[in-house]
């Protein structure tokens, strides 16, 4: 009797993907499908594909799927989940989709605490349209619309989405992982599973950011791209769980607290003292 020890997850179709050699989208797809299988969610999962390289992800996930307009996947997911709360709803979005054109949708979806799971793939570039600067492109990184490297004087600094969303009061599960090595991918799957488990329990919004490679538009071989991610992306985008529904509501306090009696006319409320809002000094 042969035992099957490795196979295609049921939650993936048998369609070969169109992704470039060395691209990590395929790994992320597989991790999602494995988690759906492990948790027995295939029959009640609904995925929402983005606009970007994963625009045809609906062909790859073997579950009911939507194709959303650019950046709106969190709004589409909201509609699905509110209509049928028993469904397990996830979005799959890239950095241009989620952190640029869809910034409003992702923040408000998280802030409403929609019980959905967002898979955010950050490869620091627009892949599908041919390598333009993304909101997550690193300072100095060359892209087709910043041919001299990202100039933070004009383009600002790359957006750290997980940190940004961590500032919201609404409970959430927020984490950043990477898939540039097998060990990291295994770690990522465990984190992703926790994200889906929070949704299954009806507990909170969950988002997992996957640092990802784009050898084609980075102009690197796949091994070079993995090394570049490790050396350049992880220092700027640290890995870890940033927020859990059980954890603190928000950051412990301002980095530079304002002293009393200064020139500031209307004192800022101090962190942890919500009663001091509306400009009351409290003493």
């Amino acid at each position: 009797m042969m035992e099957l020890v490795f196979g295609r997850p049921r939650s993936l179709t048998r369609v070969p993907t169109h992704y470039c050699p060395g691209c990590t989208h395929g790994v992320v797809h597989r991790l999602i499908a494995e988690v759906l299988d492990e948790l027995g969610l295939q029959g009640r999962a609904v995925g929402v594909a983005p606009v970007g390289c994963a625009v045809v992800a609906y062909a790859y996930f073997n579950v009911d799927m939507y194709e959303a307009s650019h950046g709106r996947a969190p709004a589409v997911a909201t509609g699905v989940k509110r209509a049928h709360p028993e469904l397990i709803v996830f979005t799959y979005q890239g950095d241009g989709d989620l952190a640029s054109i869809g910034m409003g949708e992702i923040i408000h979806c998280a802030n409403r605490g929609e019980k959905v799971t967002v898979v955010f793939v950050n490869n620091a570039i627009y892949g599908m349209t041919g390598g333009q600067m993304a909101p997550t492109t690193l300072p100095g990184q060359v892209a087709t619309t910043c041919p001299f490297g990202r100039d933070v004087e004009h383009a600002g600094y790359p957006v750290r989405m997980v940190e940004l969303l961590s500032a919201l009061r609404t409970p959430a599960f927020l984490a950043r992982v990477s898939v540039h090595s097998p060990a990291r991918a295994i770690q990522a799957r465990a984190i992703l599973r926790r994200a889906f488990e929070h949704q299954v329990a009806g507990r909170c919004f969950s988002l997992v950011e996957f640092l990802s490679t784009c050898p084609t538009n980075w102009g690197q071989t796949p091994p070079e791209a993995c090394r570049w991610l490790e050396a350049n992306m992880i220092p700027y985008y640290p890995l870890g769980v940033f927020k859990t529904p059980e954890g603190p509501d928000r950051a412990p306090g301002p980095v530079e607290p304002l002293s009393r009696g200064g020139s500031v006319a209307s004192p800022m409320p101090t962190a942890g003292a919500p009663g001091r809002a509306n400009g009351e000094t409290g003493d």
Partner: protein
Amino acid sequence: MARKLMKGCEAIGEAAIRAGCRLFFGYPITPQNEIPEYMSRRLPEVGGTFVQAESEVAASNMLYGAAGTGERVLTSSSSPGISLMMEGLSYIAASELPCVIVNIMRAGPGLGGILPSQGDYFQATKGGGHGDYRCLVLAPWSVQEAADLVQDAFDLADYYRNPVLVLGDGLIGQMMEPVEFREDRAPCRPLLDKREWAARGWKGDRPRAIISSLYLDPEVLERHNQKLKAKYDAMVRDEVRFAAYGTDQDHDVLIVAYGTVARVCKTAQEDLAEAGVRVGLLRPITLFPFPYEAVRQAADRARAVLVVELSTGQMVEDVKMAVMGRRPVHFYGRQGGMLASPEAVADQVRAILSEAASATSRRAARRGGAS
């Protein structure tokens, strides 16, 4: 249910709930705020869900998500907000999802004003969003008709798997009139099974639901376009609605107007009748499909046609297409939130008739001089 005095916006909300709508997504904008406010209060009573979206863009995409599960869903807005919803609307139409969108039109363009207008006729009937699609467009002239048409809108949306727009001007949303909701109302179209296409979790008992408007193969996309076109053709064939008043006999002037403007024109028609001027009034109820044939037939029994709108002239283009040059087509419009009065409409009719009379006498004089 007995007749009840209701504001238009609230009657629209109640009608949606009675039609089985259990999900509303919207964003505040004057003059339609009473619709989301009513839904936020009323939907929890019937086990429904209200979500205040972060923008109209998001609201229309929430609508897309919820409509894809096969539930009856509604959003409402006013002109500038409707512009923002056009992204979602194009995707909804392309993906063949049923939903109802109410536009309580205000004066534009741009931020414009908050008073009644009919400036969104082109947007509603000729597309609005990108690409090649049509929405069924229903235009009520009273609060009662708004309530009736909203209920029909859900049946039509389901039947055609297509978005239906209810296009009211600010008056429809804000005025109060008696409304009656019939308990024994039957659906205006047969209810079809949605389980074949709705995304409610795939258990292997049907093909996977893929709610999408992406067709990268041009031949496949062309077939999809033609499939949509066949559906729009069926609407043109089967769904034309209009009301006609005094058009079954010869009349001096045919007035074509929709929405509350038609009520003003009805008063003008009655006033003119007392003075011996025969006016026919044709009121399109569906703006898409437009009642071209009815307008043509009514125009054939008139000497001239007058189109009255709260715009600089939009529906008048469809009336001209219907009349095809067989009669002169005149236009009278007010803009900016200003309304047409019955007296002003009557004056327009008299001016058309006196101009026609003097043109006739000029022609007679020329003929006389030549003989």
